[in-house]
Every structure is written in C-alpha cells, then in structure tokens.
C-alpha cells in the first residue's frame, strides 16, 4: 500500500480546514443532499464528502456507509487532494497504490473510486466529493463534468460556511 504524500502546503491547508469549524459537526442537509444526489446520479453504493485532517479523513456527508472517519494512511482521498483534477481509480485491485489497502481487501471492498478535490478559492484542497463502487468501472467526459459540478456545489457550501465564520 502506498501512503499518500503530505501536500507542501499542509500547515496552511489544515489551518484553513480548522478555520471552517466543520470537523466533527452534525450532518447538514445541504451537504447530505449533494452526497445523495451523487449516489443516485452515478448509481454507486457509496458517496461521501470527506475532509482530510492531519491523521484522519472525516466524513461530513455520507451515503451507503455508517463509518464517519478512517485513518489518513488508508485514505484514497489523501491521494486525491494532491492534484486539481478528479482522481479516478477504475480498479483498485489492479492499482499498485491500493491493491493491499485494507479498504480494498476488507470492508467496504473498494474497487472503483473517483474523488473530486474540494478546492477553495485560495487553491487549498480540503477534501473530496468521492464515489465508491464495489465493482470496477470508468467515467466518461460527461460523468466527470457532472461530478465536477457536484463538487463545485459542495465547495460553494463550504465557502458559505467560511463567510459565516469570517462575519
């Protein structure tokens, strides 16, 4: 298993995340709706809005899983926040980075993953809107466009939260 690199701007990134005062808060309909829409649109069993903390990834909204966080060392999203583009893993069992990841070899038995980074206007990537399936699959250009839009809607909600705390 390949543990994701730590972003060069990690301390600034974490500061921006903590400033939102969003970690360990209760579910909110505006985020739940986005995750639910994504799960239905892409017909995936699991869709999650994750925020990558120093040692863990925490789920602000989730469909298809009762887990509310995992270690950052096993997190796919920790890889996804290293780049601007949507990260697609068509088959985790055939990907050297993830083949022996406990989230692949055990519950929830991830095979397909697509994570769209939640990038603030500042360029800091706090987490992802991600899709998970238990079977390999791919996304076409239209799918990627739709996932990117849903991610943008999630970022808008994060920005609203940012404005509330700045006010």
């Amino acid at each position, binding site marked *: 298993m390949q543990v994701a690199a730590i972003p060069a701007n990690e301390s600034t990134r974490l500061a921006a995340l903590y400033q939102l005062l969003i970690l360990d808060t209760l579910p909110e309909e505006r985020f739940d709706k986005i995750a639910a*829409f994504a799960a239905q*649109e892409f017909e995936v069993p699991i869709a999650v809005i994750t925020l990558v903390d120093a040692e863990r990834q925490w789920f602000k909204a989730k469909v298809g899983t009762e887990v509310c966080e995992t270690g950052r060392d096993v997190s796919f999203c920790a890889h996804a926040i290293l780049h601007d583009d949507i990260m697609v893993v068509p088959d985790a069992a055939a990907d050297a980075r993830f083949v022996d990841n406990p989230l692949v070899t055990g519950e929830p038995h991830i095979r397909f993953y697509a994570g769209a980074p939640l990038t603030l206007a500042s360029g800091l990537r706090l987490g992802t809107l991600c899709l998970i399936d238990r079977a390999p699959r791919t996304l076409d250009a*239209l799918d990627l466009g739709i996932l990117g*839009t849903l991610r943008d*809607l999630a970022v808008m909600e994060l920005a609203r939260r940012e404005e509330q705390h700045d006010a």
Partner: protein
Amino acid sequence: MPDSHILLVEPEPMLRRTVAMTARSLGMSQVHEAATNDAALRLLRSRTFQGAVVAVNCIGSGADRQYDLGLIDRLRADDTAGKTMPIAIMAEQATAELLSALRNRNISRVILKPFRAKVLLETIEKFGAPPRKS
C-alpha cells in the same frame, strides 16, 4: 459561449443547477433555468430557444388526474420558434394517455424517473447540435 440556447423547466434545484452548470463547464448549449411554468414563460418572451426540456406534473386527483401540458401547448401555439423547436418531457411514468397527448404535440423525447443529470445533458447535447448537412 455556444450559440445554442436551451430552456430547462425543472422544479428540483439541485438537478436543475447541476445540468446548467455542467453544460456550461463542458461548453455545451447555454441552459436557461426555470423552476416554474411562469418563470419559463417569462424566459420564452425574452429570447429564442433551440430546444426545451420540461418537467410535467400531474394535476387533479382520482380519475381526473392528468399531466399538466399547459406550458407545452403554449409553446406549440406560439408564433415563434417554439412552434417547431424540439421538446423533451420529464414525467414520472408513461401512461397511454400521456404518450398519445405527446404524439399530438410533436414531442421529441420522454424522460422517465429516476431523472439523471446525464440523460438530460445528453438530450440537451442533441438539441444543441447543429443540423446535419444532407
């Protein structure tokens, strides 16, 4: 921006926003959003559209329950491009009555629940495509 303008009439905000924003980000047709029939009529008065995707709801109850096709009738009766532009309908289910009513109104496509943004975007892509040269 693309020259093609498509009207999307859909009350559910997330589906509507997702379709309009994705169409914009992919450089497809410009999608103009209307949450209600009244909003759609206002938009129709303001510009010409090359196609429309319209959610139709049931009105009435019991045996009198039927789809409200008032907006479609307004479009087709219009003296402008609305008379001939391609229209797709979003409906909960395809009843025999609905299909018959749609045939009479020259509807291009019926999209049934569950509504997916991808299906709407594929429809919009077809409506916005330039006509093929023969």
